[in-house]
């Protein structure tokens, strides 16, 4: 590796870490209070809730593309996009969490005359705490994934180098960048996993302060500190808004948008289905019902480290690689067009669903399975009739959420050349057709909102609280 590549890499990694940390701090500081407002369910709560729903519906990369146009190239655009998106995600989660947690202990404290704040902090927060910390940990993982890819559209960080290397057909640099990127995501995952496990309030507070410090230091020491750009941004934003209104609703543009929607949906459906099929053998290889002992005597050994370790590794890598990076690989394998998008979503979906499927099998109540085995049934019968039925509802919910997630991701993949709505969006931005850009953003938001609304009766039918799976949702 040449010195320039190393220097570039150092800067890009610092910037990516800075974007991650800064976006996370913004999301926590703004998202949780907004969630409290949404949870109040009064007029203000409903208004904030509607804004949050729309913000969540805009895919990160679409937000990033808009942010790049609005505030200019560089990490600030990435921070604005990710900060805004995850503020909305955290607000929604906080509101749902407060809904799910029992309020009676807090009300009991109110009955003794405690102040409202004291009653909520002592009576409600302890019950909500594990959920909140767990979700914040998931959020930082997702933000890290987002931060490495927002560069693809010019919002700073590793993604910019990735796309540049690909354009120059410099596959060695591409490979190095990809490896660094995956390592970064895996490192953040490990960190968040630790946070989730040993989450005493003191540790969490310490971690949060550390992340805030990292945000400042890494952005300040990078070549291109974002605050040097802040002046003039306001005028720029105003100019952008003026030039993108009203949205272009001509028949030509709407036809393009509709065609884009169909392609994006097709990519999402195909990617999800292939991902499920790929996930199953890996999940079975790493699920460890044997560890619980109930398969003893059935003659079935569902796993050994020979299959388990490689399977875990493959799933971890495919999960840790952002779909956009997978899409870039897909482009170089199958060429431009929807196939690259399907490739990316199938691999990523397999990674996520494989892990969730394995977890569902591992955490499913083993009692019924042992009972069947005790009556002499085979292990496979026990899996089919005792384990799967109890794991199925949560699995179905995971698949549903993955599909919704993939609809959003397929729009994003279009931006790197995998066809669909994203492609139209990216072209409009590159050609400075901001009124067209506005139309495509609105269509992308509507698409996600409609899919979300269509899935919600299904979710209710599955009797799965949105909370149970929303960690997976982001």
């Amino acid at each position, binding site marked *: 590796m040449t010195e320039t590549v190393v220097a570039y890499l150092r800067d890009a990694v610092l910037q990516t870490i800075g974007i991650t940390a800064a976006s996370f701090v913004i999301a926590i500081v703004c998202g949780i209070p907004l969630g409290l407002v949404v949870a109040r369910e009064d007029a203000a709560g409903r208004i904030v809730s509607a804004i949050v729903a729309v913000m969540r519906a805009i895919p990160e990369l679409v937000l990033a593309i808009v942010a790049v146009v609005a505030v200019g190239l560089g990490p600030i655009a990435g921070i604005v996009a990710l900060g805004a998106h995850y503020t909305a995600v955290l607000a929604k989660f906080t509101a749902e969490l407060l809904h799910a947690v029992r309020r009676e202990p807090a009300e009991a404290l109110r009955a003794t005359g405690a102040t409202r704040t004291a009653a909520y902090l002592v009576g409600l927060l*302890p019950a909500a705490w594990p959920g909140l910390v767990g979700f914040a940990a998931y959020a930082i993982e997702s933000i890290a994934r987002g931060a490495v890819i927002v560069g693809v559209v010019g919002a700073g960080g590793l993604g910019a180098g990735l796309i540049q290397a690909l354009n120059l057909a410099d596959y060695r640099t591409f490979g190095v960048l990809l490896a660094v990127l995956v390592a970064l995501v895996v490192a953040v995952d490990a960190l968040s996993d630790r946070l989730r496990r040993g989450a005493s309030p003191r540790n969490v507070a310490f971690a949060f302060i550390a992340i805030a410090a990292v945000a400042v230091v890494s952005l300040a020491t990078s070549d291109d500190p974002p605050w040097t750009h802040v002046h003039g941004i306001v005028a720029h934003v105003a100019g952008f808004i003026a030039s993108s209104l009203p949205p272009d609703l001509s028949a030509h543009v709407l036809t393009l948008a509709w065609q884009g929607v169909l392609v994006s949906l097709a990519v999402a459906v195909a990617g999800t289905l292939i991902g499920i099929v790929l996930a199953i053998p890996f999940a079975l290889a790493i699920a460890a019902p044997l560890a619980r002992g109930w398969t003893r005597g059935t003659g079935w050994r569902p796993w050994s480290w020979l299959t388990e370790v490689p399977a875990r590794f493959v799933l971890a890598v495919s999960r840790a690689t952002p779909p956009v990076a997978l899409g870039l690989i897909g482009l170089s394998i199958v060429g431009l067009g929807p196939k690259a998008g399907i490739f990316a979503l199938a691999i990523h979906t397999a990674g996520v669903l494989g892990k969730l499927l394995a977890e569902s099998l591992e955490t499913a109540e083993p009692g019924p399975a042992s009972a069947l085995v005790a009556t002499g049934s085979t292990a496979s019968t026990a899996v089919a009739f005792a384990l799967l039925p109890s794991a199925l509802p949560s699995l179905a919910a995971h698949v549903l959420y993955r599909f919704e997630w993939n609809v959003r991701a397929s729009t994003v993949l279009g931006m790197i050349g995998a066809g669909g709505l994203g492609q139209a969006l990216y072209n409009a931005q590159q050609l400075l057709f901001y009124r067209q850009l506005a139309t495509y953003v609105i269509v992308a938001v509507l698409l996600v909102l409609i899919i979300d609304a269509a899935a919600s009766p299904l979710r209710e039918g599955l009797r799965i609280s949105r909370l149970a799976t929303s960690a997976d949702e982001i």
Partner: protein
Amino acid sequence: MLAYEDVRHAYGERVVLDGCSFAVARAETVALLGPSGAGKTTLFRLAFGAFDPSAGRVLVDGTDLRGLHGAALRRVRSRIAVIFQAHELVEELSVAANVIAGTFGRRTTFDALRAVLRPNEVEQRLVRDALEHVGLADRAADRTFKLSGGQRQRVAVARAIAQRAELVLADEPAASLDPALAREIVDLLLADARERGAALVCTLHQPELTHGFDRVITIDAGRVASDKTNAA
């Protein structure tokens, strides 16, 4: 101490209290009997101003609770300890923290948090005394979710004791406990009330547990069906 004057209350169409009147004097112990759905729990919720009755008045020490809110309502509430049927303890916190929570009515938000996180000598003694009273002194540091149903009930009693309230309301404190344990809890409540000269109102299912109370009031269909001074 506590007076209901011709109280009526309905949840939508369903009338729960239909002209209920009685009063509890200072330091008096009263057992409220009646079938489930007779309106006993609603009477309790009215006593600490969870909501206003549809009609009639609820007076705590002469103060009408209707329309009371903010600091004024908090002041009244701090004088009433409530033991909820489902305990309503904060499961994730320690037993000691749950007991100290009984004193929140006299504390600002900041002071309440400090008392939970860094209790001073006086507060530690308060917790120790209350837990000794209910026989759980050795469990102060345990998380509450580790306790059995009977132990939780006793923590709820300890929280009420720590509140040093002038009126203790206990909603079915003996429900879901075996008979010996039920008697033990009721005796704890009676002993605490006697010791401090506090009034006690206790809803019960089983008539045999009313032994030891000054008065037994039976509620049926939302009104007082009988009101007897206990001979025993």
